């Protein structure tokens, strides 16, 4: 059994709801119509391109091409990580560390999932590797951003407590104990929530997709379990990297608090 194919007319009809929203926005002067149309058009172009590129890459099924696409995905995720926060740590060091650890964690988790668990033929089959890399990257990115954001905000708020601990002869990890714990908790919250509500409140996107594409729901559920376990593992690693890396970058080798390295964006 395979999915019912969607025509261009179907897509146009789907946009009707959005058009209605646009009309309401104009009628009530909500000034949403511009943002809505830009977002919708952008989404259409992005997805169309993604579909075309992926079709091509899947047909070629070459190691080199798959790697190139993976690297582009990593670079975009790295850029998002760098550009998203309200405050970031000055210097190439932090950019390299953030992007590097994000990509490394995502790549290793993906290779483990595809190469050891799913084992498609060939092992690098882009049909498996790229979508999974995308999910892992997206999740780890959110977790890292959240962790870093809470860490920097809390470090500024708790500055006097952190400095008191440092002045008392505490190490940087001792001084950041509480703030780091808060940041790690915040970073793991999204994936914990996803796992908690999976299948009960909402069917995860991937499982929904597989079911719509004609897969047996139980098979789809097993895939989803596998993915969620990997996502949770990768997100936790990413959270730890962002939390510990953040503490190291917000302090120096003399265990001094260096909030001067934070620049507002």
């Amino acid at each position, binding site marked *: 059994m395979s999915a019912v194919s969607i025509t261009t007319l179907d897509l146009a009809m789907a946009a009707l709801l959005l058009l209605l929203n646009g009309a309401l926005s104009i009628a009530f002067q909500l000034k949403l119509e511009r943002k809505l149309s830009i977002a919708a058009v952008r989404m259409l172009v992005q997805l169309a391109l993604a579909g075309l590129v992926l079709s091509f890459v899947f047909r070629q099924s070459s190691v080199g091409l798959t790697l190139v696409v993976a690297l582009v995905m990593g670079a975009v995720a790295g850029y998002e990580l760098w550009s998203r926060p309200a405050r970031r740590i000055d210097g190439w060091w932090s950019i390299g560390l953030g992007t590097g650890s994000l990509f490394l964690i995502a790549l290793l988790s993906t290779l483990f999932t595809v190469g050891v668990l799913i084992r498609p033929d060939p092992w690098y089959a882009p049909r498996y590797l790229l979508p999974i890399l995308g999910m892992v990257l997206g999740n780890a990115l959110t977790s890292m951003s959240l962790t870093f954001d809470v860490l920097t905000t809390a470090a500024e708020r708790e500055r006097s407590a952190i400095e*008191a601990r440092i002045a008392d002869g505490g190490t940087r990890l001792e001084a950041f104990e509480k703030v780091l714990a808060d940041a790690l908790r915040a970073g793991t919250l999204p994936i914990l929530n996803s796992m908690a509500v999976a299948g009960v409140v909402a069917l995860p996107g991937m499982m929904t997709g597989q079911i719509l594409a004609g897969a047996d729901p139980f098979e789809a559920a097993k895939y989803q379990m596998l993915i969620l376990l990997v996502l949770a593992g990768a997100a936790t690693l990413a959270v730890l990297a962002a939390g510990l890396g953040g503490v190291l970058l917000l302090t120096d080798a003399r265990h001094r608090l260096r909030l001067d390295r934070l620049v507002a964006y």
Partner: protein
Amino acid sequence: MLKVDHLRVGALSPVSFALAAGQCLVVSGASGTGKTRLLRAIADLDPAEGTVMLEGAERGEMPGPAWRKLVRYVSSEPGWWAATARPHFAADLAAVIPLIEALGLSGDILDRPLAELSTGERLRLGLIRAVCGRPKALLLDEPFSSLDRAAAGRVEALIGAELDLGRIVVVVSHQPAAILSRARAELIIEAGTFRLVPHAVPRVAWSEGGMGHIGARRA
């Protein structure tokens, strides 16, 4: 011996001075001139060029935390990382209780929420925290601010007792008269430079709290 040699603090001219065990230096100057930054630089809380040595060892020769245990900075508004004071003191409460009494604080202060204490009470608790660590040098930032006369007198007596124990004390104060009698010198910050005014014969005298000490000290 605490030796500060060509220490650069912000845009101020470099500063040098040396204090032997039991000696006290008062730092004065208008608000915003860099008194706090000087203390923080000595405690290695902020990066600063220049040499700071304690008993022959440069601050860079030991890890930052080890240095700060020996050269202890006490903020004018000490920070806290728990809700009450008790968790901030290492196991040795036997040394804490007499100090609480000596500074005129009530016995239950360790278990009262810090947020409910007055600024002066928190200031004195911060001082006790530092003294309990038995550092070689105490860097006190405005230890008399927000204290009434009686409490300020008790803090003066505590500083005097610490000096008698051989502690080196650097005090930043807007009210230098309070501690000047024990100071070896006064370091005045004016117009971006430091001016060291030695006190050849410290005049005296601690009469409060049974920690009296009379006589000339090493000049």
